[in-house]
């Protein structure tokens, strides 16, 4: 019997085996070995790559080291997207491990945000959480939390502590039973295009007639092109299930989307 906890755990402990290689044009003192790592799907690249950074810095001269950034097959990887999302968006069809190229030079200012410290990631993460709660509870839950709760959420993510994270996050995922659901479902549908990276709309979990909306309804509404006669074309969320990240594709699938289109 699967239980919520099992699902949440599986989501949380989703890992992508990754092979980091240094970009060929980077100047090194000796040859840089590739570095292999299991990346948590729900985390951020710059949050979990300290080891990668250390590994490659060992073979480089100090003056050659600028801000680290990552690229996959020519596409700079946005650190502010969850890792699972990046993988599903750009690399889901490739063989594992996922080959990521590491750069220390020529930061692509146009494509990426700078990430000078983990505070930046934390700020981004908390902004996402707050945005999601604004949609879910008019920000009531997040505003009622104390600073230490916010910290616990962040520390839970940073240290990959499932219980620590969910002890707080469950409060963000609850709603009064009489409400039948959140005010709006926080979601984003990401696309691999640059002109409109994601679709986001206000979407209520319950129709005006009282029926629960399904995932299919949502897609029909916000992204009709995704629905083909056979079902839903690939969108990535079939992989990143109710991620802990409310800013990602965050459905509490068990309680809000009673049926997936075939």
């Amino acid at each position, binding site marked *: 019997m699967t239980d919520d906890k*099992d*699902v*949440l755990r599986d989501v949380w402990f*989703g*890992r992508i085996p990754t092979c980091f290689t240094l970009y060929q044009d980077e100047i090194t003192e000796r040859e840089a070995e590739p570095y292999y*790592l299991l990346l948590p799907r729900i985390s951020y690249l710059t949050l*979990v790559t300290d080891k990668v950074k250390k590994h490659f810095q060992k073979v480089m001269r100090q003056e050659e080291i600028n801000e680290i950034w990552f690229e996959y097959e020519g596409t700079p990887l946005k650190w502010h997207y969850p890792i699972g999302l990046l993988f599903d968006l750009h690399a889901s069809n490739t063989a*594992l491990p996922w080959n990521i190229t590491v750069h220390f030079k020529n930061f692509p200012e146009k494509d990426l945000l700078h990430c000078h410290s983990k505070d930046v990631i934390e700020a981004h993460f908390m902004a996402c959480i707050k945005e999601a709660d604004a949609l879910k509870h008019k920000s009531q839950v997040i505003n009622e939390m104390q600073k230490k709760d916010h910290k616990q959420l962040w520390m839970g993510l940073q240290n990959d502590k499932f219980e620590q994270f969910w002890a707080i996050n*469950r409060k963000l995922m609850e709603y009064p039973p009489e409400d039948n659901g959140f005010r709006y479902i926080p979601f984003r549908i990401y696309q691999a295009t640059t002109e409109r990276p994601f679709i986001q709309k206000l979407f209520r979990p319950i129709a005006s007639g009282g029926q629960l909306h399904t995932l299919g309804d949502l897609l029909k509404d916000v992204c009709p092109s995704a629905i083909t006669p056979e079902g839903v074309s690939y969108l990535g969320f079939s992989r990143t299930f109710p991620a802990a990240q409310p800013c990602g594709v965050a459905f509490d699938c068990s309680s809000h989307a009673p*049926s997936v289109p075939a």
Partner: protein
Amino acid sequence: MAMSSSLLWAVDIFGRVYTLSTVGQHWELCKDTQLEFKRVSAVKQCCWGIACDHQVYTYVFSGDVPIRYQEETYENQRWNPVGGFCEKLLPSDRWQWSDVSGLKHQQLDSFTLPSPHWEWESDWYVDENIGGEPTEKGGWTYAIDFPSTYTKDKKWNSCVRRRRWIRYRRYKSRDIWAKIVSRDDPDQLPDPFNDISIGGWEITDEPLGRLSVWAVSLQGRVWYRENVCHHNPEGSMWSLITTPGEVVQISCGPYDLLWATLWEGQAIVREGIDRNNPQGISWSIVESPSSENGIMHVSVGVDVVWCVTKDRKVWFRRGVNSHNPCGTSWIEMVGDMMMVNVGLNNQVWGIGCDDRAIYFRQGVTPSELSGKTWKAIVCGRESDRSQTGSSTSLLSAGCFFTDDIQNQTNAVIPGDADTSSDTDLPSIPTYLANTPPMGAAASGSGSSAGNQTAEICANLTVDPLDSDQGEANVASTGNKKSHLESLKSTNPNPSAELQWTNIDLKEAQKHPVLSVSTFAETSSLSSLGMFSVGTEEQYGADEHPLWAWVSGGGCLVDLHSPLKWFTVSSGLSSSVQSLSLSITPAQTAAWRKQIFQQLSERTKRELENFRHYEQAVEQSVWVKTGMLQWWRNWKPHKWMDVRVALEQFTGSDGMRDSILFVYYMYHEEKKYIHVFLNEVTIIVDVLNEAKHSFALYTPERTKQRWPIRLAATTEQEMNDWLSLLNMSCCESRRIQGPPSHHAIWSVTCKGDIFVSEPSPELEAGPHLMPCDQMFWRQVGGHLRLIECNNQGIVWGIGYDHTAWVYTGGYGGGFIQGLASSADNIYTQSDVKCVYIYENQRWNPVTGYSSRGLPTDRYMWSDASGLQECTKVNTKPPSPQWTWVSDWYIDFSTSGGTDREGWQYAADFPASYHGHKTMKDFVRRRRWARKCKIVTSGPWLEVPPVTLWDISIIPSSDAVDEESVALWAISDKGDVLCRLGVTQQNPAGTSWLHVGTDQPFISISIGAFYQVWAVARDGSAFYRGSVSPKKPAGDCWYHIPSPQKQKLKQVSVGRTSVFVLDKNGNLWYRQGITPSYPQGSTWDYVSNNIRKMSVGPLDQVWVIADKVQGSHSLSCGTVCHRTGVQPMEPKGLSWDYGIGGGWEHITVRGNATEASRVAMQDTSEENSAVSKDLEENESKGRAEHSKTPLMVSESQDLDRSAVNC
């Protein structure tokens, strides 16, 4: 499994009575449709109404427990030297047949049934039980002379004897409208009735089920119905209550509020209603809010009054309470209403003036009694849809041939006082309700018999209004429609000309008169049926019903009941709609499974070949820290601020473990104590008004009776800690998911529920596990008592006597999120009383007064007198509880009270009695106030019978399909047997009543269907011949109590029978054999016992009254009888477990014997682990200092603190 629901009653403008369930979405036609009604007034258990014949009827719901009344009379005899005892008495003696006092002549044949609604249960028989003791055959008791004290033994000087004869009568007219038959003097008979209102059941708890029934006659006189109560649902007679004017309408609240309206437009308010005088004393007059428009309708609740003036404006009365029933002023509310009705919880319904729809007042709360807005109830009628679905029709057609109809036929009892009534045609109305489904089924069946019936139906259709009678033979729907349209066109829009009085029934009378008179002559079943089909169609989906009256007196709506009354089905069939509105558990489960599978596949795909890769984030310890208060362990004991940290680490075996540190200052030195969570046996929150505190026990601390007590500043903070610590405990012991079938359940005095998984060594084996090592985890909910068996069937009873069945979930309450199952957790509520005492001392000047001696207790105190408890400063037990009533005098205190609730004694503290004597200088009375908790847990209500005790058979070999014997005692003392209980349906289907001659208080069923019970008089009974085939057995055998002790509890295991008496002594029944199941004698086992549970291994567990630990004393402690062997069923000594504060335990699930079960349990591992950790502990901090977060601080280990 039925959810708790209640009904809103309403009458449409045609006089048809409908009910709407709080969990339903459709109005259902009242089962008994023979009459049209003008008015109804409902409470939970019944409804009273005035039919169009202006007679009063009562509709008592059927239930599994019969309404029965015991008649008794005494047979008296005197001894004479010639014939011995004989019927010849002395002239000065009482009658040969008399009442108990001997003053009233009562022969057996002088007893008659009070009304046609009663029947005799059996013939007269002799009662052979006197004061809890069985008498000789014949039931005679002897005395020297009348009147005297009687003994069961015949002595040399016994000159007279008597015996008691009893006979039961049973109320049979349930689920139908029973006419209130007047046996009064015809001159005194009230004239035809015009309005009725019932309530007043809360004026006092005792006697149970008492009801105030008030009626207004057409001449404007007010009548009060005497003696209406549970076992006398009709009452006995009408009493005239004089009024200052002609009354047109009356309203009676659940408590002491009673208002009526006068013809002139004022309201009158009854004053002086109380327990001793439910009729009240006098009237006060309240003027109408507007001078031009008088009051035309008034309705009252607990402490609210609403009225409607003649211009249809709605008003709310301010300032109404029990001290001032008249209130202070009127406030005008929005909306134009025909009438308003205040129901339970002060909720309000109204009938709109223009649309005749029923409106519900939303937002009525204790803090906002006038509510927020009117919201229209838009439910359709059940009959609207039942005609569309053929399956439903077939179903009901099937019912037609069951006893259903039999009941109704039998049940129609014409009133004998009124012969003019046109409703006294039993056969006709009976079929009315059943005909349409039959017709539908028959035509749908296609069988020749069915077709025949259909033809007959069609041929019999004679519609007096239809000009084209010939075509009526073809029962086509089009025809019916056209007929109905014509009917409709002859009736102008009813609301246009309707007046506020009963003129609105003018329309209705056309229908019923036609239907009854015309069709009665033809005696046609079907014509009535067709007719009713037609009328339903008249109001299709788009045309809502027009209502004339609504009563919410039995309808319980509170914040926690989501109503589905306000959305229309919008053409969807009901089944589809219910699907779309709520996802079934099965769907959710299937869904989860699918998601889980997909995730597992993903994990496999992405991770399987790469497990050797390094993790990006290393596992590290995380700590929850916080500031709490700690009940320090040196004297003087008090709360001190401490810093608390929980550290969690994953061992090399992948097992998680946690340590809780408490850092404190001792003489300006930093010190700490710590506890390994895998050693914690229970975390229990502690009842404390001022603090949110909880206690942690380990086996050692259980022995000491001295837990680690911690307190948080807010409830939320405490719950966070409780939840986290509980989760960590369960994790370190690898306990997950719902309790097993063998689980031991217990309940604390706070109503908290704990469950423990028994290890096989608990009951047998070379190394018996001490019961202080048992690990208890909490399950959500609030219960007074819990009982289970070894098939996972678990029932509980709340403090409010509500029965609950376990759903198979876990968690709930504060245990939320991950440690709680997602399914099977429901809202649960419970109500209990808080008591305080008012104490007074007598002085020669003023008599009793609240001026006591300086040495006296507080004039307002708790039961002990040590704590001052005033009405104002007494708070609910914890912040989870809220008051739901005001303070009221409790008359049910043991020892009895006088009319004002006082109990007298010579001095404090002493034994109190209910009447004043010369020697009494002090008195006290008990005040009660109800409070309510709303929580959640894996429990579903089993309505409607409220219970006192339960017992479920422990079965030695579990056969899945077989139904499980479950016996119970209702809170009125009825013995009940639950039918249809299986593992799949643990709630069962219905109760079977088992007759007894007196109320019972305890019941238990053993593994071989041995049913033992204890009666309220303290005597024991054995039920003979109970078996799966004969679930209720045949008769009771009276078993004499041990040494004249009054018994209070019985528990039967596999073969052992134990009873507990009211003085806390435990007794074992000796001499039980298969051929002599009653046994022979009682053997004394132990004293100091509060409650006990004997399990399927004949193991004996109790709640001991007092247990002394090394540091402290605990009251209410779980204890296990050791040394219980087949040859030594009484055992040898006690082993002490968790406590104090425990109220109840059941071990009836635990049939796990060490020899039979492999060592799959983890307890051995656990004890091994804990041993390791003990060693670690002795090695000091070294082992744990690898955890990075505790290196810098508290280097000084307080050894004594750690060791304690």
